[in-house]
């Protein structure tokens, strides 16, 4: 992934001003960078990421700017000049540029093309009224001429600054940097991955949309949640249900097959899901252009995508009109095959693995989801908000989706479906049935609806049942909801020893959750200090509904701790290394981590001598901490 810029890929353009522009590189369009100019998109398509491009002056017979790759020697020309010994006046590269170079530690000078010193800093005099002799109109004129990618403007600006010779080396460097940021016509293309998108959201878009979740927090959540590739895909066999079969044909959930599944509560518009999917290897579509020699990188996701493409092809044929590009004859063909298929469904669907070519369409009750390496999202609204996944070509709302690895690894259900599935219409309404004959007599649209509803029923049935079967490998949250209430309903679903990682932009919510597992509370619980749990079975204790004294069963989590992390960025320049003065994306965030414990049955006491004064904190050795 991310080797070359592909047509229609989402990319981040980093501008000299430090801002980032995120856009989709559509072929045959002009990309405008505002004041820095514009260029045809085809000039960056097919090129590598992370190169620095420079907009060149328009050739006399062309009406667009061509791009030039700026070599690193030129990018760092000034730094090299700074580092250079007094002996060598000219930097190794970028000889045509006018650069500021340090002749010694103290003084900076501006040298022109021939190496003559045109300006020299002087530490004694700092003129407050230093000013630019070029008028705004003249600068505009220079910009319009716009020669040499803005470098001429910068050089002229520096030269026409009356007090340039009075600036200290530091203020001179700063002045030059300021002008460079403003006028140099360069940009860099970065791929849209989770790190880049999160940074862009945080610094330039709405940080609250992703709950101010910074890179450090994403890293911590992923690691403490132990999120990783959860095993090769395992698909359930197609039951080959005929249209006349109802509920009884549904594939039962096989608990032994369910492995490497993570439970997620995500209120960051899908950023958390994307970060987890990235860690599990199911976020990026594989690149079909054979830039890779590694064949298995294709192999793993192509199988599911083949599966999916057939499913979406099937949907195409059943929902005429939903794909506007299909011309009329094709639609008719589609409905024909659909009829044939509906009648011939049972004999065709046997065996989980089918050849790629002319694979028979899966029956309505075939489960497209992998049993391993999946993310299960529980959402509070009736539909999950995973809008940021659009940047990776995944649209959860799209009914017939082009192949994407998330399609059969991302399972979503609402809290209602999880906790009270009998109240959810799509779960509890039994599936429609019809004999093939009746079906054949229906109009195509009605038939399409019939299949769609049956498919939806089977999928929801599977998601809900599999989720309720529990045994998840971990829980990762970044939610605005109270973590205590989330834990109450999700803890029973976790496998023993499964990690829990909860992000919150404020510490109070996490502290309240951690307090539910405090040592005194736990001691009271196991030491008989809680009359309300007398006589409850282990199963009942696991699903403890909570009361005021014990909002959660305090023995279900071990090692509850809260932490926060902060990256401090530094500027590293010769003689000018220091932390950055300001940083964007400022708010802190906190992560609560713990492991799911399987408490021993019956009363249990910690080792150690203690006076039995009360059911109290001193009765506890750190053993129960």
């Amino acid at each position, binding site marked *: 992934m991310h080797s070359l810029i592909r047509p229609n890929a989402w990319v981040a353009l980093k501008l000299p001003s430090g801002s980032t522009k995120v856009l989709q590189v559509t072929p045959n369009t002009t990309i405008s960078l505002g004041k820095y100019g514009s260029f045809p998109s085809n000039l960056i398509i097919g090129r590598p990421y*992370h190169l620095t491009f420079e907009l060149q002056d328009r050739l006399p017979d062309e009406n667009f700017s061509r791009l030039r790759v700026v070599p690193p020697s030129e990018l760092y020309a000034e730094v090299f000049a700074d580092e250079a010994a007094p002996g060598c006046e000219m930097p190794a590269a970028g000889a045509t540029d006018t650069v500021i170079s340090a002749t010694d530690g103290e003084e900076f000078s501006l040298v022109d093309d021939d190496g003559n010193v045109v300006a020299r800093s002087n530490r004694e005099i700092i003129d407050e009224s230093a000013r630019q002799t070029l008028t705004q109109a003249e600068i505009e004129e220079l910009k319009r001429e716009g020669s040499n990618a803005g470098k001429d403007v910068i050089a002229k600006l520096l030269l026409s600054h009356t007090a340039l010779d009075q600036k200290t080396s530091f203020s001179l460097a700063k002045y030059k940097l300021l002008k460079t940021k403003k006028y140099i016509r360069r940009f860099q293309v970065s791929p849209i991955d989770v790190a880049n998108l999160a940074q862009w959201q945080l610094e330039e878009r709405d940080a609250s949309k992703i709950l101010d979740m910074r890179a450090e927090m994403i890293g911590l959540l992923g690691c403490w949640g132990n999120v990783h590739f959860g095993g090769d895909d395992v698909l359930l066999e197609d039951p080959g249900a005929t249209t006349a079969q109802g509920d009884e044909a549904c594939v039962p959930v096989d608990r032994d097959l369910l492995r490497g599944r993570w439970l997620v509560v995500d209120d960051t518009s899908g950023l958390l899901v994307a970060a987890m999917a990235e860690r599990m290897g199911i976020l990026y579509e594989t690149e079909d252009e054979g830039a890779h020699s590694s064949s298995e990188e294709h192999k793993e996701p192509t199988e599911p995508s083949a599966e999916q493409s057939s499913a979406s092809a099937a949907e195409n044929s059943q929902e005429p009109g939903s794909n506007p590009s299909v011309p009329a004859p094709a639609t008719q063909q589609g409905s024909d095959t659909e009829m044939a298929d509906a009648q011939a469904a049972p004999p065709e669907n046997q065996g989980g693995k089918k050849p790629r070519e002319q694979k028979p369409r899966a029956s309505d009750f075939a489960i497209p989801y992998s049993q391993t390496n999946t993310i299960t999202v529980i959402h509070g609204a009736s539909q999950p908000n995973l809008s940021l996944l659009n940047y990776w070509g995944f649209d959860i709302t799209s009914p017939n989706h082009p192949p994407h690895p998330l399609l059969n690894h991302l399972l979503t259900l609402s809290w209602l479906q999880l906790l009270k599935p009998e109240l959810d219409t799509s779960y509890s309404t039994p599936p429609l049935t019809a004999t093939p004959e009746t079906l054949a007599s229906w109009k195509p649209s009605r038939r399409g609806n019939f299949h769609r509803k049956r498919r939806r029923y089977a999928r929801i049935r599977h998601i809900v049942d599999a989720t309720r079967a529990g045994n998840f490998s971990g829980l990762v949250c970044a939610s605005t909801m109270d973590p205590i209430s989330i834990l109450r309903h999700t803890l029973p679903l976790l496998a023993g020893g499964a990690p829990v990682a909860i992000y919150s932009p404020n510490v109070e919510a996490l502290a309240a959750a951690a307090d539910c597992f405090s040592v005194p509370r736990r001691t009271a619980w196991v030491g008989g200090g809680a009359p309300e749990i007398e006589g409850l079975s282990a199963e009942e204790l696991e699903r403890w509904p909570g009361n005021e004294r014990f909002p959660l069963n305090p023995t279900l989590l071990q090692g509850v701790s809260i932490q926060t992390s902060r990256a401090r960025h530094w500027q590293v320049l010769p003689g000018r290394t220091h932390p950055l003065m300001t940083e964007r994306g400022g708010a802190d965030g906190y992560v609560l981590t713990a492991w799911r414990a399987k408490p021993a049955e019956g009363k249990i006491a910690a080792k150690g001598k203690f006076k039995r004064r009360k059911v109290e904190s001193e009765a506890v050795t750190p053993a129960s901490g």
Partner: protein
Amino acid sequence: MAPTTRTCVSPFLDPGPRTKANSLAIVQLSRDNLLPVYLQVPNGEHDGYAEGAVVNTRYGSFPHSTMLDVPWGSQIRASKVDTGSRGRKRKREADDQACREATAVSEKDEEPSAAGADRDGAAAVKQAVADSSGFVHILPPTPELWTTSLPHRTQVVYTPDYSYILHRIRARPGSTLIEAGAGSGSFTHAAVRAVYNGYPAEGQRKGKVFSFEFHEQRYQKMKKELSDHGLEGLVQLTHRDVYSGGFLVDGKSPEADAVFLDLPAPWEALPHLSRRRPQDMADTDGAAAGNGQQSWVSPLNPRKSVYICTFSPCIEQVTRTVSAMRRLGWVDIDMVEIANRKLHASRDRVGLNLNFDRGVNNSPRDVEEALARLAEIEARSREQAAKPRDADADEDMDLADEVGAPAKGNEARNGEHAPSTEETSTATAPWMEGRLITRGEPEIKSHTSYLVFAVLPMEWTEQDEAAAAAKYPVGKEQKVIGAIDKAARKQERRELLQKQQGGASRKARRKERDEKLGEISG
């Protein structure tokens, strides 16, 4: 080990539902006190214990048999294990042996086998008996738990650092990662988890970590650890000094997508991580070992941008590293420092009518409480003073009163409030008293190391550019995207809306047609 025939996945990657024999488990003694244990099936007496291998802690003794084949996360009760007589017995044995060694050296060879036979004779493993108190939890190994419990060999890269590093260097399933300075292996374990996408079959390329360690002993220990942890097919450990030896493995390029350097002098290793033979390397160390003069092979993936992170504690190292990176063409150079803080949530219990437990501050909670108490004391002393008394005694009493006032006040208060505390304990449980607070830990790691990140774009030649230019010719631009002015955006919007309406009507038309078709066929 033949990776194709592998049946057991590393417990770090898939621990399975229950604990297994001969596999790593982490015993959690207390919150931050973790103990890695390789669980053994008890077969006969072990190390003097009748129960087989036993973990002895200050929280009790735990025979391995009680920890085997239980669900992960289980709370394990301590067992009654005879530790005392074992100690004496061993001492006696040792004494015996010392005697024997002193007298007959020739016997020494037979001694262990004899003892072994002796133990086999008493092979019946004693069933563990549960103790009345003490417990631990048993957790599946993860890189985080391993990092806090591993045997230190060098400075460890802790979770706050490695989590951020792996995120920034884009270590993902299927990536190939170079790690130099394996050290204690904490980063290695986290890196394996990040790049893991299945064990490679013969000739297959999967996510892999190429790890380098120049210290012989650390290398050997690491090698053993990796095999114990079932990570052999996923980590390729090489014993080498990368400054001179470079990063090729068996003369072949690992084709790394990401690099992590935990070395004292990263700038010495950086020239090896180039796309082409760097110029100054030929001067300085001539033919780098294993890299022939003619064919210099880059250890990097030629088809991708490569991400790097170096980990150095001192700023001088950073300066030199960054300088070297700039000269070698790395871009997006960024230096950061991670500050991690652990917070402890607790109850801040301050108040006069609380009990005398540890952690309770028996001073007034607020001004009102202080005022009430002062008034109370004042009233009582006035009461005392009002009582007609013998003059001498009165003076003494006054003195005593003044000195002992707080203590007396406390007692009186306790006497008074004792029943009411009982009442309140039913209303507010002691664990719910006080204000919930979070505090940082008294000792923090305020500086671990400076992290330098950078990216090396893939090589792009004139030919490549020409090919790309031919494939994507310019000149057919239709619209403008990116920073466009308001008018243009409005116009676009209008067109889009029109198109959508058009689409909708087309959809309607198609639906009509379909219905007709349906009628015909039905």
